[in-house]
């Protein structure tokens, strides 16, 4: 069966550094063909438009865990009720992705962090200099907490909670940092291990 081999992309232009540019993603295993998607697959995809994405059509092979994962993701990042501002939820995602080395995930969430904060240059420093970059006291506390939580084993503890409180984050905002970084420890591992990023074609 065609599904029982890996896919390789020998001609792919793999991005060589972290970037806020829009990247593509190429799967190493065969995604489900769009015309074979059933109602259950669409329920897992949540948004029907995701049927266009090879990443989501690959994950749709197990639709129930994909659906639960997607709904977890949406509440962590999009729930507008109180807690951490959206820009900083995206920052926690970008920091975890930078630390784990997921160039694709970092590109998406650095772009979102820039969009919502209007601090594109500061976000770019995180990508260029890494998680030790000085982004100002509040963002440093969020990045350091996200990084400590992402280490395996984790080194996150009450000192990080205290540092976030000192920057004015309340408990819900701190829980949002925790969930944002934790979720990207899920996403990074899928993106990194099931395919590879593709740089945009040179203009």
């Amino acid at each position, binding site marked *: 069966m065609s*599904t*029982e*081999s*890996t*896919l390789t992309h020998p001609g792919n232009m*793999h991005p*060589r*550094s972290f970037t806020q540019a829009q990247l593509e993603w190429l799967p*190493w*295993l*065969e995604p489900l063909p769009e015309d074979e998607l059933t109602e259950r697959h669409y329920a897992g995809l949540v948004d029907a438009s995701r049927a266009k994405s090879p990443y989501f059509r690959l*994950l749709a*092979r*197990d639709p*129930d*865990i994909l*659906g*639960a*994962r997607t*709904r*977890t993701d*949406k*509440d*962590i990042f999009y*729930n507008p*009720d109180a*807690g951490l501002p959206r820009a900083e939820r995206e920052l926690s995602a970008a920091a975890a992705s930078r*630390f*784990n*080395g*997921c160039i694709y995930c970092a590109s998406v969430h650095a772009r979102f962090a820039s969009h919502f904060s209007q601090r594109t240059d500061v976000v770019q420093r995180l990508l260029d200099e890494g998680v030790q970059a000085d982004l100002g006291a509040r963002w440093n506390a969020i990045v350091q907490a996200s990084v400590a*939580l*992402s*280490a*395996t*084993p*984790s080194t*996150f*503890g*009450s000192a990080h*909670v*205290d540092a976030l*409180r000192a920057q004015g984050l309340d*408990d*819900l905002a701190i*829980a*949002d*940092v*925790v*969930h944002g970084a*934790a*979720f990207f*420890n*899920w996403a*990074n*591992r*899928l993106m*990194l*291990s*099931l395919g590879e990023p593709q740089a945009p074609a040179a203009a």
Partner: protein
Amino acid sequence: MNAVVSSFPDPQTLDVIDQLVGIAPGSALDRLRAQREQARTQAQQSYLALFAPAEPVAGHFEIADRFAIAAFVAGLHGQPEVARLYAEALAEQGVARAIEAEVARGAAQGPYGHYPEGPLSVEDEAGPVYAVDAVQRAVLGERLSAGLAHAHLLVFHPRDASPAALQALLDAGWRTTEIVTLSQLVAFLAFQIRVVIGLRALATPSA
């Protein structure tokens, strides 16, 4: 299949994250989690989708093997309490002991690994490449042992992932859909464990 389950999770089971953090109804953390109701519910649904999947189940990935891999992943994260929760579902003490032995052998500090050659190469960090020991391999079997090796890669050095790593799974009898579930399981655990650690720290009174 080498691992066997002693009991299946009850879909009505208590919220696993609440249970692991020790969140009592009406407590501050209970109210806090209630403010992200979907994240809480769907994290639990994720757990159930992986460990008590609804029929028809995608692929043929034995439930007992799922618990064995989860116990391994939690052990590698240095979370014996979480590891115990998953290991308790294993009926075979031999499998549980083999997993414990492999957790000790697989211990490392992540993330490490390599970037594509270029400006990021200065950030490359070497680390162990893990495979199950011959003694435990005899207990766990080739297929589960290959799953554990892949889990170790995902836990500690996911940026070293490659088509070759997936080919090793295919060669050991994993099919494409089962590899997707395996990847989700390991990656979900990486999330669940960190939420538990983060919420525990939040519940600890500051000095």
